[in-house]
């Protein structure tokens, strides 16, 4: 009987790795992230397949939730290109815009921080590959589901360190804010322009009540107030 119970538990919970969510410090957003900092070997890009099952900001005029990947062009992630989906990008106070595909960059040397909302359709419950890839001339191309979104220019500062992050962000974690989803197929593009299907040595990190787990078949489940 005990043996049967153990087998049942193993089937129900095939988790290979789980984040231990940490107490959320005041003044910071909530995250549940897969993360990896490379000192080399991810110089030319990163990609991951993202399925978003739930994405709702309870107060879309002033608060946001997102499901996305950041590609830090520096090891400390000070400057980056990001691609994903977001809820809570208010068009105005009367007509909030929901479920937007977006990409953004943060650049040094007066380049500023800029978000872009291309008219690209997508659906909950489907996988899309988000990708940032070196385009030469200090630039990076951003893709969502194979669709070219745009090029971040003047956004390379030398060096080979890169900061890779993927998961959810929420500007608050009220009971009405919901994010759920999965990710798999995380990949990095090295300086030799070959894609490698790993973020080897990756770690998981989350702020309670957000959480992220990765299963034994390398699919993550990230959630903020579910469902996922």
């Amino acid at each position, binding site marked *: 009987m005990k043996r049967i119970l153990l087998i049942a538990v193993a089937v129900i919970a095939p988790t290979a790795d789980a984040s231990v969510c940490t107490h959320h410090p005041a003044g*910071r*957003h909530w*995250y549940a*992230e897969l993360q990896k900092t490379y000192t080399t070997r991810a110089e030319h890009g990163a*990609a991951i*397949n993202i399925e978003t099952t739930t994405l709702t900001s309870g107060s879309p*005029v*002033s608060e*946001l939730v*997102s499901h996305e990947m*950041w590609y*830090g062009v520096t090891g400390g*992630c000070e400057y*980056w290109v*990001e691609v994903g989906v977001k809820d809570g*990008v*208010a*068009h*105005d106070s009367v007509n909030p*815009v929901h479920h937007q595909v977006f990409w953004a*960059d*943060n650049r040094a040397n*007066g*380049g*500023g*921080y*800029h*978000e*872009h*909302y*291309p*008219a690209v359709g*997508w*659906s909950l*419950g*489907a*996988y*899309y*590959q988000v990708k940032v890839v070196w*385009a030469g001339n200090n630039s990076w191309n951003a893709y969502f*589901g*194979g*669709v*070219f*979104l*745009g*090029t971040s*220019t*003047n956004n390379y500062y030398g060096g080979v360190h890169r*900061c890779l*992050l993927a998961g959810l962000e929420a*500007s608050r974690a009220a009971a009405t804010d919901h994010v759920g989803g999965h990710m*798999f*197929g995380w990949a990095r593009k090295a300086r030799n322009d*070959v*894609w*490698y*299907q790993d973020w*080897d040595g990756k770690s998981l*990190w989350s702020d309670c009540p957000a959480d992220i787990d990765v299963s034994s078949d390398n699919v993550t489940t990230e959630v903020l107030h579910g469902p996922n």
Partner: protein
Amino acid sequence: MARTEHITASLALALAMTSAVGCADETEPGSDTEATESVKPIGLTRTEIASSLQALALDTSKRWGVEVPATVRAVATADHQAAESVISGAIINDHSPVYVVQVTGGTFTALHHPPNVEAPRGTVLTITFDAATLRMTDVGIDEAAPELAQIDREVVDLQPMQLAP
């Protein structure tokens, strides 16, 4: 040991895992449908459009941290891509007519950012709106104001309307 499977393997797996995969053949930079020659929108000369743009800009300014900005100026242009090359330096695949509104007068703070990284800040907020729908297509902050006159010579001051009864 790092596996060296090509990224296309993950796409194949995605097809196997879900019945609805939103990934088609990859489009490439510059493959946009160039097209139809667009014309500069005339909305800045119409009170209702200018008022809507002002209201949208002030709302965005408030959410990014500045409730009462000092200046709100706008231009209209026939080409979104050309406007973005001036504002953000980004290359985008869209040549639609847009309005660009620039707000100054305080410190704006980005609404999201990676963990353990300070939110970007700047003293100039620039917002781009699709001319047909007034949907916000781009928003960003800088320390130095992108020169609106490089987008169009007719720079319109929207701020006085805030004081109108």
